[in-house]
């Protein structure tokens, strides 16, 4: 059995809304699957089915080889869930929350306390552990929520948008926590709206839109889907942007874009153009503060795949 979890053709409807329209998701043991999609794509619905909280209307899903509907009780023994909406009890302290879960997982009270202390320490919550969770900041609540999902040392962990609403430093902390879990051999399903996050953490990415996977592959694969690479030039003298644009247009054979002030970018076919560009800039005596060749961002991948930006897709769903 090589897949830690595997969903095939999952369908879920809520009234007239089709949240999942035959989604396929799978991750091998010890891997991180990134599920990337805009608001309303069906990420949470898919996670809830894999966590046995919802029954699918169609398709099937197995976790550790066990069916999520028929063997739901067994599935619950191997998974840990950190939902999109904090699922800790606000009236209880951090420690009480974790001890309760330990006891529900059949730890003896002493063991449950030891495990809670260990997790609180790992997540930098030792001090806060004695305060009701209602007094926690957003980042602390997220960490407590994640800790709650880890009490039973699950083989498979679902993280539904674990960094939404966190500041960049807290987000990096969360990323490091996820990396540590993976180093311990845990399989992770991570949903996110941040392309950067999927790129940073996932071994494979499924791009989801309107309840379906519209692309799947490694982060590098996905970037290649768009084809070619992008040259970015930022002349040190912004006044010479026009000249740079002209040179780029000539070399690439298409009109460059200016995504920000003082920067031009253009997609190119091969990297030979890059060498030629360096020569031309040198000959014209144009200094640059930035000159790079990069793979397209996942934002651009999404645009290529759907013909829409992620925000447009969101508006459509909201409408």
């Amino acid at each position, binding site marked *: 059995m090589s897949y830690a979890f595997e969903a095939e053709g999952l369908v879920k409807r809520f009234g007239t809304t089709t949240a999942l329209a035959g989604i396929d998701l799978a991750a091998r*043991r*010890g891997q991180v699957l990134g599920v990337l999609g805009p608001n309303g794509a069906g990420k949470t619905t898919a996670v809830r089915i894999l*966590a046995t909280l919802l029954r699918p209307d169609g398709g099937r899903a197995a976790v550790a080889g066990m069916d999520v509907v028929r063997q739901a009780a067994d599935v*619950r023994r191997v998974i840990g869930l950190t939902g999109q909406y904090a699922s*800790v009890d606000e009236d209880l302290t951090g420690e009480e929350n974790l001890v309760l879960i330990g006891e529900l997982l059949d*730890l003896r009270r002493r063991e449950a306390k030891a*495990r809670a202390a260990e997790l609180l320490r790992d997540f930098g919550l030792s001090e806060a552990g004695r305060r*009701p969770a209602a007094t926690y900041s957003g980042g602390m609540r997220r960490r407590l929520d994640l800790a709650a999902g880890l009490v039973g*040392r699950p*083989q498979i962990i679902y993280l539904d948008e674990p960094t939404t609403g966190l500041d960049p430093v807290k987000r990096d902390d969360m990323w490091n926590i996820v990396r540590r879990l993976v180093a311990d051999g845990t399989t992770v399903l991570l949903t996110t709206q941040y392309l950067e996050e999927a790129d940073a953490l996932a071994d494979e990415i499924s791009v989801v839109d309107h309840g379906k996977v519209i692309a799947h592959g490694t982060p590098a694969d996905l970037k290649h889907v768009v084809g070619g690479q992008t040259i970015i030039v930022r002349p040190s003298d912004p006044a010479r942007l026009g000249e740079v644009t002209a040179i780029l247009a000539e070399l690439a054979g298409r009109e460059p874009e200016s995504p920000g002030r003082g920067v031009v970018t253009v997609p190119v076919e091969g990297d030979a153009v890059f060498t030629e560009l360096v020569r031309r800039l040198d000959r014209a005596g144009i200094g640059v503060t930035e000159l790079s060749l990069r793979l397209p961002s996942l934002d651009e991948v999404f645009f290529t795949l759907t013909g829409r930006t992620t925000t447009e897709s969101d508006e459509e769903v909201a409408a």
Partner: protein
Amino acid sequence: MTSLDTGTRTARTPGRPGGVPPARSGPRPFGLIRHSVALARRSLVKTMRNPEQLIDVTLQPVIFVLVFVYLLGGAISGSTQDYLQFLLPAIMVQTVIFAGMATGVNLNTDIKKGVFDRFRSLPIGRSAPLIGSVLGDVIRYVVSIASLFVFGYILGFRVQTNPLAALAACLLAIVFAFCLSWAFVLVGMMMKEPGGVQGVGFLVLFPLTFGTSMIAPAETLPDWLQAWVRVNPVGQLMDASRGLMLGGPVASHVVVALAWSAGLLVVFAPLAVRAYRRRT
């Protein structure tokens, strides 16, 4: 389908990759009971941290006693003191039953919070979170009875039998309210909003508690109402409570009240658990 599935464990999956030993100790028996008790403790802690939640169950009996004793007491019994003796054992029953309704209302709110998602994702019996909440709410019954008795004693109420019999009366009321509260849990699982649960609750509770000899002796009521009073289990419970606190026949009333308790539990607990599982 068994609704009250136990949370007993089957074989655990082999050790997880990475060689980290599982934190869970081996299988332990009586899962459902242990899990329910752990969850009841959670409810208790929550109530203790929000004591304002107990204001209704503390004040309501006090207000009812004041209203009935001083507005009606003279008219019904000729003396407020005699009426207090007559009323208090019955009001005790009403108070506890109302506290049981609050369980359904609170669960309706509680269940929408994310923490119930977590309970559902754990390998515990499906009924454990409900049993835990219902058990934990017994604190409300105790607090409401205590405040009623303290107030009653200040006004001059005295138990005429013995403390043990009075305690038995309270326990009997608690058992009945506990069993009836499953009906309110069922309503709590079916309604969208806590206000709806309260509305349905009052609709059921008014005929049950006021359609009795609580306020006035049954003989003074019209015939059709007397017929209802005779079949109403809450009326039986009130008679049992009066017998235990003031003296008089109790046995048959107690048996009927216990039989009703068992019946309510057997019918409504599985229905409530089923409604809870459906509500996902």
